[in-house]
């Protein structure tokens, strides 16, 4: 129906975006009737998401003509943004942004670098940027989940943690079990994605490869490769961030800083 109304591809795309946004807003209004207020967060996220992705699309058009090494800067920029966004899940934990950025840089950066070096990811910008951004985005989500869970666990168990401190325990040891459960829960989506691959969902990259004429078997195998890379980078990011964040919830005098009253 839409196609017959719009002759330009961009106008057609904007119309599609408008319909998808209306649908999302309808769900938000439905949530509002149940006293769940997502309006401002969701509206900002929708507008922001559209602007960002259109901006990146425009940059990609320019980058297609740029030298291959320039993708490193774009990926580094994505890592910085991912660190900043996921650190918001660790409200009131000092140094969370630094921890998030370092963890995502190490987790996503290392996996992307090794896989590019091994020839699994092509160095062409059209390949490196989409695959790299998928790895970074998933590392960001995992990091956000891990930090959010860790924060909740520490807040919920402040009494136990301070009891252990009062008995002379090392601060990092008092929160070790909460860090472990945070790593575990943060990796559930990545593990479930791998588990349900091809059965519950056929991811976008594979669809794109099929549309651009790749062999279905190769597209399927490469999609597995990407999801496995995502699991590796997410796991490494989650491990590093929970390991580093442990020290940040305590003062130099080994006092618990993260309290419910904050």
């Amino acid at each position, binding site marked *: 129906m839409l196609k017959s109304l719009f002759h330009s591809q961009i106008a057609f795309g904007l119309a599609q975006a408008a319909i998808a946004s209306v649908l999302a807003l309808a769900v938000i209004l439905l949530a509002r009737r149940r006293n769940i207020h997502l309006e401002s967060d969701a509206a900002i996220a929708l507008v922001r998401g559209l602007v960002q992705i259109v901006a990146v699309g425009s940059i990609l058009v320019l980058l297609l003509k740029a030298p291959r090494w320039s993708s490193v800067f774009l990926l580094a920029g994505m890592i910085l943004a991912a660190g900043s966004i996921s650190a918001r899940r660790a409200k009131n934990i000092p140094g969370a942004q630094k921890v998030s950025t370092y963890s995502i840089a190490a987790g996503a950066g290392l996996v992307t670098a090794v896989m590019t070096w091994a020839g699994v990811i092509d160095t062409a910008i059209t390949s490196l940027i989409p695959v790299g951004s998928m790895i970074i985005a998933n590392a960001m989500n995992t990091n956000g989940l891990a930090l959010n869970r860790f924060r909740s666990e520490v807040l919920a168990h402040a*009494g136990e943690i*301070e009891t252990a*401190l*009062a*008995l*002379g325990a090392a601060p990092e040891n008092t929160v070790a079990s909460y860090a472990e459960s945070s790593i575990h829960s943060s990796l559930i989506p990545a593990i479930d994605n791998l588990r349900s691959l091809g059965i519950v969902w056929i991811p976008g990259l594979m669809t794109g490869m099929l549309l651009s004429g790749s062999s279905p078997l190769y597209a399927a195998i490469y999609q597995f490769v990407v999801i496995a890379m995502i699991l590796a980078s997410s796991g490494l990011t989650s491990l590093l961030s929970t390991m580093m964040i442990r020290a940040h919830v305590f003062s130099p*005098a080994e*006092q618990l800083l993260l309290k419910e009253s904050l």
Partner: protein
Amino acid sequence: MNASPGVPPDAAVLRTERLGRRVGEVWIVSEISLAVQRGELLGVVGPSGSGKSSFLRLLNRLDEPTSGMVFLEDEDYRRIPPRQLRRRIGMVTQRPFLFPGDIASNLRFGPAQRGETLPDNEIAGLLERVGLPGFASRNVANLSGGEQQRISLARALANRPEVLLLDEPTSALDEQAKAGVEQLIRDLINQSSLTSVLVTHDRDQARRLCRRVAILEAGRLLQLGTTQEVLGA
């Protein structure tokens, strides 16, 4: 420093000088100077929000003072590594927060932090002292409130503290359990002459247990003296 009635300065095990803590713009503890003498049980009494527990948390450095000093055996406690300080100044809180597992592992927790293993006979001895002989292998999930608080006391004692801080240890207990834990505290202090500070909102409890009492109000030390002087008969 306020003089502690009848206490020569050298008898003080724990001493605070103009101790204060500010949270935001509010001083929750302000300018408190007092001394806890060797072997005494000093009561800290006051209504809810008077800063009693906040004051106690400054004594083992679970919170950082904004101003003033704390001395343990005349040594500035900032010079003592926090883990060592907390081993020397034990604490029992209103809620016991026992660690999941059996009672023996709870009692072993403190010494294990220093790489020491608490022998079975010492565990048995501690449980005897808190009136729960033979409880070592019991799971903490199956204990009553009073029993949990007794284990919490035994766990603090397993660290062989020089000072014991008691933060409303009976306020979450029913009357019967409260009387039992109170009697236990009295016995422990009398038998071992352990220097202790008891925070309580219950003036009668302070009368029953303490020889000296400090009254706190709005974070400030209002009165310090013998129980009879401060709270009457």
